[in-house]
């Protein structure tokens, strides 16, 4: 620069001052002590989901059409998504924040879509330096499969012993094909076994074999389920034209019971009763009168509501608030007498008692009665000290361990809700406890830390990615900024017409098409999960949030004035304002 130009520049600046310094010398962050932090939190759906699926994370992948990434995420928590996506009682949907906006996200259908359209292999969660141990898993229902799956992912040697010809437990021999097709079951069990798990089929474990297993294996997981029928206790119950739910469903030639029957009465209001009634419908055709009778009020039946509605579509009569008192008939059953009943739940024990109700008895014609009022485990082969005789179940603590420290148990054998997702959770819990114990960690400290919110569910991914999500903070609807969301109805899959269903065992629910599933996934608020929408970053008036990568944001406390715009605007309540020191 010449001297002349320098002079000219200086002259200008006496007339028109020029700002050449940078405002960054002003640490305007000192105006406020409040600073935002990005911290992903728990969604209420995930807190409620027994398997602890990272629902918002997976749905964010689906919303972009990436089913593979979604499945990989789901497989971190759930070995059986195609099954849960079909038969789970979906407590996630009951808790979904979207209920308070329009209607729940169809999470279950989306889980199914992820399992059916995605392709992924489960991620190994062990390091080579971890100690490895050996485990015998008894029973290949969802509890046993889940325990085996997670133990294998942690690198342990697992052998499953199954008394039946094929693995799956109730999933194969109880839940009918029209809800859960065999190929789905085979696909999901295949993926589990492919982790290098040994399966010994057709091997019933008795007390003697159990002793032998104790010599061969370090730990034993008991997942034998509940297969003994609960009976009404009525003296007139014993005859051939009375069958029990799970025995009937798992019977190879169950059609013989139904042949020629005109009036079938199903006793019970749970999922088993519904499946028994619907199976009977398919076996005896549209002409037979099938009536389902339970002590609960209609609308309060314990069965999953969708299944009940489908049963009604299949012309199954549903009657509530009655219980049987007499099976009438001489050599052949002719009628069943029912009395008016009401159900009372003890607030403390949670036990139900049946009390007499007001109203007349009911006489129902019946040439076949199918009783599905519950199943009990066979606990005869176990050490007496681990059996809770009051309930005929096996004791387990919060770590999934029985009073005998090498024995763990889960599923219907224990006093947990008899459901697939809860069985999966119990297997996961035991697997994690065994893994921690085998490696000298204290499961009593770690398991509570991995528990999701106030619920009972556990996260394996939280164990691996420690600290990424605040598992104790559940995002409430009122905390979301929903201004940018629109009210839209949920996408529902197709159902086959009721007429064809009355004879056919093919799957009733068609699920969501790929495109519809993507649209449905977009309805998710992704409560507590950052999806990288950049709103916080772009809308900071003080340019105090730096974007450092995909979904990675850093707040610059030197300049953040604590206006809270970022925290207010985030549609997913990822950001919170905190006093900084």
């Amino acid at each position, binding site marked *: 620069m010449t001297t002349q130009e320098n002079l000219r520049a200086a002259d200008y600046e006496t007339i028109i*001052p*020029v*700002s*050449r*310094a*940078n*405002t*960054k*010398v*002003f*640490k*305007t962050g000192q*105006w*406020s002590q409040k600073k935002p932090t990005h911290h992903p939190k728990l969604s209420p759906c995930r807190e409620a989901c027994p398997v602890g699926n990272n629902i918002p994370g997976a749905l964010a992948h689906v919303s972009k059409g990436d089913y593979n990434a979604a499945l990989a995420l789901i497989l971190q928590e759930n070995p059986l998504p195609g099954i849960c996506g079909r038969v789970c009682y979906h407590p996630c949907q009951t808790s979904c924040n979207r209920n308070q906006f329009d209607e729940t996200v169809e999470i279950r259908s989306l889980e199914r879509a992820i399992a059916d359209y995605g392709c992924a292999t489960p991620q190994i969660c062990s390091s080579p330096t971890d100690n490895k141990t050996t485990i015998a898993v008894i029973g290949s229902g969802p509890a046993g499969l889940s325990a085996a799956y997670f133990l294998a992912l942690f690198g342990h040697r697992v052998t499953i012993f199954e008394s039946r010809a094929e693995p799956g437990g109730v999933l194969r021999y109880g839940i009918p094909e029209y809800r859960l097709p065999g190929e789905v079951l085979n696909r999901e069990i295949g993926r589990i076994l492919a982790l290098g798990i040994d399966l010994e089929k057709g091997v019933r474990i008795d007390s003697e074999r159990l002793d032998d297993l104790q010599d061969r294996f370090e730990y034993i997981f008991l997942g034998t389920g509940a297969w003994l029928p609960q009976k009404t206790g009525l003296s007139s119950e014993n005859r051939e034209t009375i069958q029990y739910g799970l025995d009937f469903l798992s019977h190879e030639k169950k059609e013989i019971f139904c042949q020629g029957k005109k009036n079938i009465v199903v006793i019970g209001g749970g999922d088993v009763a519904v499946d028994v009634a619907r199976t009977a419908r398919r076996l005896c055709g549209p002409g037979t009168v099938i009536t389902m009778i339970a002590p609960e009020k209609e609308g309060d039946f314990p069965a999953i509501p969708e299944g009940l509605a489908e049963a009604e579509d299949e012309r199954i009569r549903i009657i509530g608030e009655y219980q049987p008192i007499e099976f009438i008939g001489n050599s052949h059953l002719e009628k069943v007498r029912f009395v008016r009943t009401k159900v009372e739940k003890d607030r403390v024990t949670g036990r139900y008692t049946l009390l007499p109700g007001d109203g007349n008895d009911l006489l129902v014609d019946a040439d076949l009665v199918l009783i599905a009022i519950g199943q009990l485990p066979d606990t005869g082969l176990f050490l007496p000290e681990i059996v809770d005789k009051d309930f005929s179940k096996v004791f387990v603590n919060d770590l999934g361990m029985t009073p005998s420290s090498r024995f763990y148990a889960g599923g219907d054998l224990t006093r947990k809700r008899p459901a697939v997702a809860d069985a999966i959770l119990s297997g996961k819990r035991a697997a994690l406890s065994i893994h921690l114990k085998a490696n000298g960690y204290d499961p009593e400290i770690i398991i509570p830390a991995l528990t999701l919110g106030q619920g009972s569910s556990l996260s394996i991914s939280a164990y691996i990615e420690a600290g990424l999500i605040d598992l104790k903070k559940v995002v409430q609807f009122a905390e979301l*900024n929903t*201004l*940018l969301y*629109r009210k839209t109805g949920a996408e529902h899959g197709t159902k086959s017409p009721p007429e064809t269903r009355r004879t056919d065992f093919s799957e009733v629910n068609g699920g969501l098409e790929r495109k519809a599933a993507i649209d449905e996934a977009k309805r998710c608020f992704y409560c507590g999960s950052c999806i990288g929408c*950049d*709103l916080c970053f*772009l*809308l*900071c*008036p*003080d*340019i*105090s949030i730096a974007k450092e990568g995909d979904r990675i944001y850093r707040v*610059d406390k*030197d*300049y953040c*004035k*604590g*206006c*809270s*715009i970022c*925290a*207010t*605007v985030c549609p997913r309540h990822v950001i919170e304002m905190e006093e900084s020191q």
Partner: protein
Amino acid sequence: MYKENTVEDLMRSGHFACPGCGVAIAMRLVLRALGRKTIAVIIPSCASIIAATHPHSALEIPAFHGTFETAAPTAAGISYALKIRGKSDITVVAIAGDGGTFDIGLQSLSGTADRNEHYIYVCLDNEAYMNTGIQASSATPRRAWTITTPAGRSARKKNIMEIMAAHRIPYAATASIGYPQDLMDKVQKAKGIEGTKFLHILTPCATGWRMAENLTVNAAILSVETRIFPLYEVFDGKKYGITYEPQGLPVEEYLKIQGRYRHLDAGQIERMQTETDEEWESLYRHVTDCQRKGAL
């Protein structure tokens, strides 16, 4: 359109905007979308204070601070100078408040639009003279409190978009800080068009609207979703298009978070709703009219 990897922030931290300032957000987004090859003309307003307090600048681009009534001709002049020097790749943008646009700068703005000078005019509308302490402008909505309209302004808000459309400039658009992507897309669109482009951006002001400072963006979103401030474009003064279909939430949702409307009774709120509906219908007629003409 707007691509993330080609943009950077041209506004710096450490400026003196009030916490939560909508003007600062809008300025930041406009400059992100325009890019480094930009010269700004800024006139007295909150934007000018945010951009610089001598000798410190919050901008990474050259900016000229002009006089209150001359944002438009100053920008047009710079644009001419660049043309003469053969520099066709530099965008000139005029940044002014609502007072500087709707009131004092209107005449000179009209002149440049009439001549279709090549530059972008950005009006950052916080609906009053905020920088000097909340005096009403002709952009202040009917019934809004300011210190010069303690019982609420009686005249309605001037429709600056129709005024600009009447000049038949090639591009005029409304934009909102609640929809940053849409805002940046419009800025980039304006950048690619020859002639005078006008952007009307509503920039909620916590201080002047008597509102919590964390709510400026939500207020901007609500202004759009209640159809108080619809997002639309006008090409050549004739071709109207809605760029974002609002939900049509009740205007009360927008009014109730702002202290400047606290004195409104139910009847007045209802009239605000009716007036908003009428304005929306009239805008919608423009849109359907030109769709019909387009179909002919």
